[in-house]
């Protein structure tokens, strides 16, 4: 008849279950969008690994499966883009980029919601419209790049150099954003 305190931590809630399901769904969507219409065996294999890793990330309380899921999903998209050169591929690339963002966001949400006590408070301090500006702009930029990449252009040294310069500038800007 020993007296022990009750466990005050959270048990599984609907929000937690939804966050877990969202991880698996977005990872599966990334794999499916990347694999169709031409089901290349390597792409399908990587897509399968993505789904398995995302399932593990949804269930296990560790970060490593989530990292592996993002890595596998990215490789799936890139491999599919390399092997399949169908006219739909730029559109698929934009969709996959959006889904990859969604996968990262879902993993972050799963990490936040999982283990949170029922009395925990989560307050958005900015409206949804304000928070959606950056992702919409990013996807718009991705669409511009996709459209541009789909054009038939004559390769030239200045064009390649300009492309490389754009990539370097983008990397520098991105790295600078992280510097305090």
């Amino acid at each position, binding site marked *: 008849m020993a007296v022990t305190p009750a466990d005050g931590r959270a048990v599984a809630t609907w929000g937690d279950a939804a966050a877990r399901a969202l991880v698996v769904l977005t990872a599966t969507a990334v794999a499916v969008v990347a694999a169709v219409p031409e089901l290349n065996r390597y792409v399908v294999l990587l897509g399968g690994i993505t789904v398995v890793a995302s399932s593990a990330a949804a269930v296990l309380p560790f970060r490593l499966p989530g990292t592996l899921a993002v890595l596998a999903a990215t490789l799936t998209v890139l491999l599919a883009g390399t092997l399949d050169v169908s006219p739909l591929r730029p559109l698929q*690339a934009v969709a996959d980029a959006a889904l*990859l963002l969604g996968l990262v966001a879902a993993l972050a949400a799963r990490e936040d919601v999982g283990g949170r006590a029922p009395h925990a408070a989560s307050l958005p301090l900015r409206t949804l419209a304000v928070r959606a500006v950056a992702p919409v702009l990013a996807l718009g930029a991705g669409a511009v790049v996709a459209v541009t990449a789909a054009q038939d252009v004559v390769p030239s040294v200045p064009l390649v150099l300009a492309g490389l310069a754009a990539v370097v500038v983008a990397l520098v800007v991105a790295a600078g954003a992280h510097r305090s």
Partner: protein
Amino acid sequence: MIAGLAVAFAVATAHGELLVVAVVPLVLLALSPRSAAPESLDLSVALGSDRCVEGDEVTLELRVALPGADRLEAEPVLPPWTESRFAGHHVEGGTRVLRWTLVPTRWGRHTVGPVRLRVVAGGGSYVARARVDVGELVVYPAAAALARAVAPYELAAPLGEHPSRAVGSGVEFAGVRAYGPGDRQRDVDWRTSARHGELFVRQYAAERAFDLVLVLDTTVDAGEAGHSSLDLTVRAATGLAQTYLRAHDRVGLVTFGGPLRWLAPAAGPRQLFQVCEAVLAIRPDEGEKDAGPVHYGLGHLPRGMLPHRAFVALLTPLLDEGPLDAVRLMRDRGFAPLVVDVLNAEPTVASGSRTEALTLRTWRMQREALKIELGAMGIAVLDWDGDAELTGGLLHAMRAARPGSRSWQ
């Protein structure tokens, strides 16, 4: 990672559309510069009250000012046996005010907090965590229900509120007697005098005070948390102290089973506060647990703790020989305590197990034997399950047991 892989693949395979995968995260990063993230946050946290009674609602308020952040997540770490809910938030001049309602369900000194904070900025690119300490919440036990302060007829202490058998200057009618020299005219009972043809005067019961000494057996804490024997013991003690102190009686407290503690009988609201504080000290903290068992018997109790004709109530789960020894010791000192049995649980046994069933039966018989032995000593035993009203049983037991006095033995 995504951007780096995409750029590498695009360059290595000369597939320009793969840059799409790199562009999206890079643009997101470019649009979320670190300079836009908040560098500091002002916050304060406070409890609405640092003292309450079991079942009371206490507000926990967090004030945070963090311009530039996207999301704030706050989770207070709460002590066990505390129910809580998020009561909402509002903005006061740029400061977010978050409120939680806490309902402590078990007495004791509880540490509330810290509050864990997680601030997200830059669309999830920047995350900061912080912990804020809150403080201690003292939860007093909920007093057991007593309709009124009952007392035995034989009372010694003067100037109280309990009518006694002695004749005095109270307000409760005690009888009539023949008029004698010195009697006041206002006390003449004219109706009785007219009937008998001679003068009779009314008599009133003297009003006396009552000394109650509560002896708490804290050796064992048995039963379900929140309704354990120790919980019932402290609730009964608090209820008795509160009721009798309101009636201007004197109440004392003795705890044994762990460290022997006592509080000399006294009256007044201050004594109630001291009783509550003494009761809170019953549950040992971690330091006392580590110090090992402490066995100081009631024999070390100062004689002044048990005043002349005090009424002693022993609250115990009757699970060992300790209460019996305590009763014997008090009988030696001239007191016949009332024993209140506060155990309302039994050991759980597996259904179908004959050995465990036999063990339970033996356990019940041992408790019954203790009660029989107490009965043979003339000690009244009152069973209390924590929910019943105590007054009736207490009155019956008090009228059955005589208040202690060495001269009476």
